[in-house]
């Protein structure tokens, strides 16, 4: 077990909307060790993007603590936080809207280095840009092109180069390959793995794609309506899912094969509203294993096997 790089404790982000309080992230706690990848999966509206941004304080949390290398990010002043952000970067889902259309590729990659004053000499800075373009597999001839001249895969490479520019320790990857074709998706995933192998970087990998998260992450956390409902090493989660929602989610993956197809668990209905949720299990109304207690008491996230956490009344904590 490595050193803990990120620890999130009881993180909450509530939005006040017309109809009440929207619980986007509700009491989420987890630890992430250096050099590892934690995948966050869940369907649209489960709060995974809000959580990623709240961890970086791009959105201010309602309450909770975020320890990065042992330091509570919420206690940092604005200027301290800006300095700290060199170590924490983000890659966005949509490479079409996350790049400035009026800046060339080199300007985009150079900007964070210049603003941070890391390399004052402009020639050396240019060399660093070329270096970063090599790392992410962008041909040097593209250095003066604009985002609209590039396809989605190359734009996402620019986004990755910009995130790497500060030599960060930690990157939040918010659906980095969702808008790409499968052959390009595989190229980008392999690139991100190589970077991790070479630099020991830590990823928080947010996605709705279960086969991608399984391939890419060491551990996976499943979110449902703002809550973490299960967290385990990838192998355990895929081979022995404990939460009925995880089971259903895994069985819904369309597999690209025509033999050994799995029985599918059909979920009733759709996501319920995250506004003013009752203090009961949020999945209960769609759950095929729902019991009396589920509609009365909210199950806490407990460790039921070593490193396997689940929030479900069907499962009791270890040693109880």
């Amino acid at each position, binding site marked *: 077990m490595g050193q803990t790089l990120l620890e999130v404790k009881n993180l909450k982000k509530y939005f006040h909307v017309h109809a009440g309080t929207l619980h986007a992230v509700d009491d989420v706690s987890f630890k992430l060790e250096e050099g590892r990848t934690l995948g966050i999966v869940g369907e649209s509206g489960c709060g995974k993007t809000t959580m990623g941004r709240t961890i970086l304080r791009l959105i201010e949390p309602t309450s909770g603590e975020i320890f990065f290398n042992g330091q509570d990010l919420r206690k940092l002043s604005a200027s301290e936080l800006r300095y700290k952000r060199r170590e924490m970067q983000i890659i966005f889902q949509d490479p079409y809207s996350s790049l400035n259309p009026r800046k060339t590729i080199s300007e985009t990659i150079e900007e964070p280095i210049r603003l941070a004053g890391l390399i004052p000499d402009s020639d050396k800075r240019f060399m660093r840009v070329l270096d970063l373009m090599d790392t992410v597999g962008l041909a040097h001839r593209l250095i003066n092109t604009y985002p609209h001249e590039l396809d989605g895969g190359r734009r996402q490479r620019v986004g990755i180069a910009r995130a790497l520019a500060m030599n960060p320790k930690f990157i939040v990857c918010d659906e980095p390959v969702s808008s790409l074709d499968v052959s390009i998706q595989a190229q980008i995933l392999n690139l991100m793995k190589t970077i991790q192998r070479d630099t020991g970087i830590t990823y928080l990998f947010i996605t709705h794609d279960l*086969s991608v998260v399984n391939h890419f992450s060491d551990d996976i956390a499943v979110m449902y309506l703002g809550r973490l409902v299960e967290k385990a090493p990838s192998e355990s989660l895929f081979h022995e899912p404990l939460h009925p929602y995880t089971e259903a989610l895994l069985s819904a993956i369309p597999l690209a094969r025509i033999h050994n197809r799995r029985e599918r668990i059909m979920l009733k209905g759709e996501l319920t509203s995250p506004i003013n949720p009752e203090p009961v299990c949020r999945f209960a109304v769609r759950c095929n294993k729902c019991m009396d207690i589920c509609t009365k008491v909210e199950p806490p996230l407990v460790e039921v096997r070593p490193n396997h956490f689940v929030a479900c009344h069907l499962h009791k904590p270890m040693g109880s």
Partner: protein
Amino acid sequence: MDAQQNILEIKNLTVEYVVDDEVVHAVTGVDITIPAGKTFGLVGETGAGKTTTALSILNLVPTPAGRIVSGEVSVDGEAVFGMSPKQLREMRGAKVAMVFQDPMSSLNPIKTVGEQIAEGIKIHRGVSDKEALQQATKLLEMVGIPGGRVLEYPHQFSGGMKQRVIIAIALACNPDLLIADEPTTALDVTIQAQVLKLIKELKENSRMGMLMITHALGIVAEVCDHVGIMYAGRIVEYGTLADIFDNLRHPYTRGLFDSLPDIENRRNELKPIPGLIPDPMNLPTGCAFHPRCSYAKPECSRDLPQVKWLSDTHCVSCHLYNETTENMLR
């Protein structure tokens, strides 16, 4: 009912777009046959020409930029390209219906879902408003939405339910052919599973043919009977579900499968296809896939590969099979 009849026949279809005096070869020499009651999956990446192929069936290729250069399309034995505007209007929505990718933008926000389902029924069947609305209610129930919601507006429905409404609109006039362009791409997996199940159930015991356009091989495995793999405007491999999933022969098809993460063994490395899809204004000579192909031989950059039939159902366009029908992929 003639079980042998083909609902859709596309022969040697070629479509171009002219942009700034340059020609985009969107679709070249495509042949597709869909028998009654069967689903054909057209698979390919962005820009492969899938949607242009679908639009050609309805003669909806945008003009003046787009131009159908050659080929024939017939729906239920009737040639589409010779139809008058009136005949086309009668065909669209009645004989051939289309489901688009984005459920959020293909519904009219200021009309109730009932009105939108009833619209086609009124136009094509000439029934009264009241009767059309009754039929709309039944269709809504058929796709799993309570009939009582027929007078609600699209914003009152979730994404999955909107896509069900769109399927109800498409099925309103009992079409012979349903074209579904990435119908579940915008939906979450659990909702996608519900919609795919619905599509399969609706197709049971029906002679309706379906053209399913998708980039996801997992969805093809689930709903399709036949598959065409499209690359740079051409179909490079064509066969039954078993031909493609158990016995694939084209290096590009192999590349698509190898790019997918293995759900059973997460440590298996992804083997992406190197490079990018070619610029359709400037396609490589010979086989358009040769710059990315690890099997490329000198003739691949020189000559266009011919269609080679490996069995009654399975064909491939690749120079590897010029002299043999054996599997040449390592």
